[in-house]
């Protein structure tokens, strides 16, 4: 069972960071949720706890970085 501390949980930030890295290195179009979860060793369903889609992740990463 995972401990979730609002939006600022460790996993949330980890996903954002990985998203940022992947989008930059291989481009947004080439990045899938599968790539991302593989990179940071989490389960795909964990990704969807924080983000509805890869699009939503891009929106967040893009606005904040």
């Amino acid at each position: 069972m995972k401990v979730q501390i609002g939006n600022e949980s460790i996993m949330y930030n980890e996903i954002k960071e990985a998203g940022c890295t992947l989008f930059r290195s291989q481009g947004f179009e080439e990045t899938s949720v599968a790539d991302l979860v593989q990179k940071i060793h989490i389960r795909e369903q964990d990704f969807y706890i924080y983000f509805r889609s890869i699009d939503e992740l891009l929106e967040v990463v893009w606005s904040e970085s």
Partner: protein
Amino acid sequence: MVRVVKKPEERKSEIIDVACQLFLSKGYDSTTMKDVMRHLGIAKGTIYHYFSSKEELLEAVIDSVAEGEMMRLKELLDNIEGTALERLEHLILSGSNQDADDEHKELLDHLHQTSNAGMHIRLLAKVVTKQAPLYAELFRLGCKEGIFTTDHPLECAEFLLSGIQFLTDMGIYPWTEDQIERRWIAFPKLIESQLGAPAGSFSFLLKTSSAR
């Protein structure tokens, strides 16, 4: 969605234009990638391809606003005949109080509202670095005509533009009417001493201050 192939530069400036409108109408913070995407009918990835962050996009918007304003002034300057001082007067008087300037002001106001101080300063800096060469050219001409004396026309232009722009920015200095008026009254003399210009040659500036 029909895929329209556009030249990268064209696409980029389209994104910048739309973003500029959105930042002004919705505010920078509430503008999302989705908004930009909807207005242009392009994919998110496309926007990301050109601007890897929202801040980068804002930077481009700022650059384009400053560049547009500089081009407008340059055109104005190219069409004025006369001595350096006459051309300077024309540049300053007709350079302000125009539609493009209003739009520029609107963006500045917006930058104040969103307490986007860093961005605001960057726009001011950009405007100065882009416009200073225009002024420097006139200062150089003035030196040739023997009316000005300066060994550093560009730096002089940067110094004066930064000083005046920064000091008269009510978003940075919340002056009262009287306080700002005092500054405007002092500027002509300060400029004259910077440029070694004859006393009273920049009195025309008082006209702009009362017009404000």
